[in-house]
């Protein structure tokens, strides 16, 4: 479904040249739940943004369902079925929850029932949130759950990317989050999650370990977890829910 060929990303700024991703070669198979993990600063989020079209690779190729989408913009990729839940969701003055979910769905969601369905899946009571603006009045955990609800509302998702979905989410919501991924998995979506969380690693069909800009290892949880502790700077990457 998704193939990355010789993908690289570098930045040049006042501190000089820095390679963020180095010659990444990956294939994400259809209907799989794949978790990308690895130390902070290893290039995981950059890779997710490159797949969505938010960042442009400096070299390499991206194939989605056999089509070269390297030069496609964000809108084209979204319309082709790639969805993206942001690590730090964006806030809008004057756009309420119902409107944002309607924009995600591609048509006005009129009935409470539809909006309620998406919100309850992420553990929010629709009556409390449907008319609230997606602005600074929402807490970090609330906006994070609404962000995930936009992915559920988006109609044509074939590949859903979640960039650290657990960040800012409380324990109770976390259980809901796992259920969301399990349900998406059952409905045959391909899911790509950037995460450090053991319980998210647990639901993965495949784990990709990225460190220092390149793929260290690809394998099952049993194969990858022992490796994590040996990766430099990894003491904080494999953490339990309560940490």
């Amino acid at each position, binding site marked *: 479904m998704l193939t990355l060929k010789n993908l690289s990303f570098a930045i040049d700024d006042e501190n000089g040249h820095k390679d963020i991703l180095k010659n990444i070669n990956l294939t994400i198979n259809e209907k799989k739940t794949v978790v990308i993990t690895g130390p902070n600063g290893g290039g995981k989020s950059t890779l997710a943004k490159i797949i*969505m079209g*938010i960042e442009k690779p400096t070299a390499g190729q991206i194939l989605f369902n056999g089509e070269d989408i390297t030069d496609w*913009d*964000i*809108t084209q990729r*979204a*319309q082709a079925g790639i*969805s*993206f839940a*942001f690590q730090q*969701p*964006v806030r*809008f*003055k*004057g*756009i309420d929850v119902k*409107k944002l979910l309607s*924009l*995600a769905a*591609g048509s006005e969601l009129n009935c409470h029932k539809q909006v309620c369905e998406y919100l309850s899946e992420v553990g929010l009571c629709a009556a409390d949130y449907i008319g609230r603006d997606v602005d600074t009045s929402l807490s970090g955990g609330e906006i994070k759950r609404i962000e995930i609800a*936009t992915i559920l509302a*988006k109609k*044509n998702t074939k590949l859903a990317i979640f960039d650290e979905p657990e960040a800012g989410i409380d324990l109770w919501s976390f259980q809901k989050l796992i259920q969301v991924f399990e349900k998406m998995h059952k409905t045959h979506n391909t899911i790509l999650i950037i995460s450090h969380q053991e319980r998210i690693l647990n639901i993965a069909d495949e784990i990709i370990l990225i460190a220092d800009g390149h793929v260290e290892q690809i394998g099952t949880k049993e194969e990858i977890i022992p490796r994590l502790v040996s990766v430099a700077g990894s003491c904080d990457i494999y953490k339990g829910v309560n940490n």
Partner: protein
Amino acid sequence: MPNQLNDSELQLLEAISGLTGTPDGAYNIRLNGQAQSRASTQNITIEKKTDGKDGIDIRIEPNTINEKVYIPVIMDESGHSEMVYNDFYIGENADVTIIAGCGINNCGSHDSQHDGIHTFYIGKNAKVKYVEKHFGEGGGTGSRIMNPTTVVNIAENGLMEMESTQIRGINSTKRITNARIDKNGTFIVKEKLLTHESQYAESDFEVNLDGENSSANVVSRAVAQDRSQQLFTAKIYGNNKCHGHSECDAIIMDDAHIAAVPEIRANNPEANLIHEAAIGKIAGEQLIKLMSLGLTEKEAEQHIIDGFLK
């Protein structure tokens, strides 16, 4: 009666007041400088001014509850220019909604200009919701100009909520609002403004919080596109124990210019005053988020602006 208006006049009327027929309540519809139609009710009297000035006096009896007054102004005669004085006397304990607004259709080569001074005398314990929409259209080369001045006097325990909207269409506007608030009185303003092309808009508030425990909240949301220019000035003077807040939040686009000049002045040690002003372009992350839902950049931009000015 509104049904004597032609189609384009009816469209203008609906755009500024929401009216599609004869209003329910007291009204005065002004067309190209003349009273096109007028009606009073038992509690609300609308009369032509007798002091020689062009305009009307609106008198609302004390204890008038849940009634509406419509005073829309329509201009579709290119080159027409007017200066109108409307005075509102709101009786004690009244609770009313006043829907004003001006629509100009200028298809000609001469400038059309409406200048209006609305003066409110809001009685003790009275509540007024004042809704004012400005709208312009027409393919002529003549400008559409509106300069509304609103003078507000709020007596003890009185309240005025003012909603002022101008979205596109007006080439030049200078809007002045001066308010004096007595004991326990409240003044709330929500202003929405969008300018484009080479339009100019100036909005100037001066609020005097004279009475003990008086309060004011002036909130402006503005979008400036193309080469348009805006100047927002808000002066809030705390002359007693009071609460005052002003907020100008603006999105700047293209080659536009926006200036926000907030001023707060405490003339009493128990005055509590806050001002906020922010100008910036649409945040890139907002565009990216909506594009990641499948919208084009233009569509995303439009939804962000629509929401901002909601």
